């Protein structure tokens, strides 16, 4: 992990500490990696807007000294879209939980990906709804015990990576809170990427997921992240395809949404200019011709 140019505390709102995350929670590790990435990229704090939803992950926004928008459950990407399209020069980072990203917020997720709007999404996947007390999530997978699955879950999980790729995200990666170096590297790449970037971070929830599922402690879960994952393209993954691949799955160039919108502005303003010229040739007042051309379609 590279040495920060500034202390991590420079990026924190220490006024609002202590944070509410449980001891052993992986979310603080993600926050740490994120701050180091921002520092590595040399971004100014005022250039970053963090937009979060509701849940444990969402509280990250409050602790960071950026412009921070703590919104509604699942809607962070819709708010973020408004911020970004209105001020395309700002960097938008959205830390989302299981539900924010892929349950209540699933529709916003796929549409933001489809638009390829320049937003960096961190899916803090702890396979459980922590803040509400340990209910199962769309990332829990089958055979998991949760407070709303006393007989264990019967639903399969989304694969957030495959979903993001299919929906059109142009940067898609997965890592874990065990792989702190890779976490920072990938976050740096994701934030630098001009387009919709998705980083799934497997993050441990010892309080709810661990306790309900064999009494796993944070350390057990981190060890599992190490043992059960393998880098994309690695020999290990080839020989053991059941392992969870980590690394960068997609990194492609596609024109970003706000840039495409700029072309809409150019076309619209070109059309106005053309109409004004045409009106002048026709001898009419330009204003009036524009008004006439603007008459609504018949409904």
């Amino acid at each position, binding site marked *: 992990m590279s040495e920060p140019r500034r202390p991590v505390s420079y990026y924190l709102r220490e006024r609002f500490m202590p944070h509410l995350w449980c001891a052993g929670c992986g979310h603080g590790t993600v926050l740490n990696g994120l701050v180091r990435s921002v520092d590595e990229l040399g971004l100014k704090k005022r250039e970053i807007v963090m937009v979060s939803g509701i849940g444990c992950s969402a509280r990250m926004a409050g602790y960071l000294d950026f412009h921070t928008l703590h919104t509604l459950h699942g809607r962070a990407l819709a708010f973020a879209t408004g911020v970004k399209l209105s001020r395309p020069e700002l960097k938008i980072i959205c830390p989302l939980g299981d539900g924010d990203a892929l349950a209540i917020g699933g529709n916003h997720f796929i*549409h933001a990906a489809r638009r390829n709007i320049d937003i960096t999404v961190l899916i803090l996947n702890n396979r459980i709804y922590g803040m509400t007390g340990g209910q199962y999530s769309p990332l829990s997978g089958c055979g998991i015990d949760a407070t709303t699955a006393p007989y264990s879950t019967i639903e399969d999980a989304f694969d957030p990576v495959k979903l993001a790729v299919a929906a059109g995200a142009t940067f898609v990666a997965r890592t874990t809170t065990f792989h702190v170096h890779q976490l920072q590297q990938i976050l740096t790449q994701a934030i630098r990427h001009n387009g919709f970037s998705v980083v799934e971070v497997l993050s441990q929830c010892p309080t709810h997921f661990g306790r309900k599922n064999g009494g796993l402690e944070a350390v057990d879960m981190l060890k599992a992240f190490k043992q059960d994952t393998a880098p994309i393209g690695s020999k290990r993954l080839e020989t053991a395809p059941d392992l969870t691949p980590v690394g960068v799955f997609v990194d492609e160039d596609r024109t970003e949404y706000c840039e495409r919108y700029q072309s809409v502005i150019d076309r619209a303003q070109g059309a106005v200019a053309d109409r004004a010229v045409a009106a002048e040739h026709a001898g009419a007042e330009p204003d009036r011709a524009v008004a006439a051309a603007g008459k609504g379609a018949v409904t």
Partner: protein
Amino acid sequence: MSSTTRSSRANGAAAATDRTSTGSNGSRAAGTTAATAKSRTLFVPGNEACAEGALYAGLGFFAGYPITPSSEIAEIMSRRLPERGDRFIQMEDEIASLCAIVGASLTGSKVMTATSGPGFSLMQEALGYGIMAEIPLVIVDVMRGGPSTGMPTQGSQGDINQIRWGTHGDHSIIALTASTNQALFETTVRAFNLAETYRTPVVVLYDELLGHLREKLTIPEPGELPLVERLRTGVPEGVDYHPYLIREDGRLPMSDFGGVHRYNVTGLYHDMWGFPSTDPRTVDELAHHIYDKIELRADELAQAREFYMEDAEIVFISYGSPARTARQVVHQARINGQRLGLLELETIWPFPARMVRDACRNARSTIVVEMNMGQMYYHIRNAVENPRSVFLSNRVDGRFITPKDIRRVLRIVEGQGE
């Protein structure tokens, strides 16, 4: 035609500068824009009048999802905003639309979305967010028949109560309406002014009939109608800015996202930093603030048009396009020597209780004319001194209320049979 506008200087323009010097006669009556050299006369449907009003007010960002009978507003914005270098986006649903405009408003843009009843129902959660986080927003609700999908192409006024009470928790809201395209244009401008002045969502609501009714619209020249711009903090960089520290005049200067001040915005109860708080005193103060900043100004925000009210023995109270039918009835009755009057409400919420009470004080009867099951009627009954003198003339079949409908109720109220 005997008509006057009753209002305080409620378009909010005054609030930015000098609240005390504005009296009850300082305001421009809605629908009074006169054609001048630089004004433009158009023949457009109500939805376009509303869109023109928004553009006049300085709209910079629109997000929406198509729904009859409001879709024309989105269509107009998709063409006009990029012409001005501003932005339009069609979101994946109404929920996302309202969320997106909250985000854009925080960057300093004047923002709007437009929908109809079903879409408004979906927006309720984010509307509450806008109220709690005190975000200037304008939401247009072109009402159609409900509940549920109801009657997409027929008019109704069934959303009166959902816009006031639909989102959970104690709150207040500002909602304005109009009955002509000219008034709708000016009402929309006023909505933006009030949204900025009070840092709150403002609803512009009207029914399908007005939305699709084409009539003359004179767009005033720039500067003719006062505009309220975003009140931004003067706190310099490096000095603590408290985004939710209420000034003595009740206002909260804002700082744009991307600007020098970084702060937190949340839908949780929060302190002056915008940071979540459950401290009882903090919560209590904020709960009262978001309620009182509107409800305690109900008289100031109240705006209505009066027709023949001076000596009216029977008072009609109506709003939106049904007020045109009531006005027709009153107008003709006066020709026949009947002393009828009309109070046409242009502010729906906060409910203009005092104005209604005063208007009905000397009336033998009051007849509320609306296209719902009496959503305003019950509030009017509660406001007047003699609730038993208040009657309802309504229609809920999607058809526009006719003079005949109203006259039938009038005859019954007057004991003349049907």
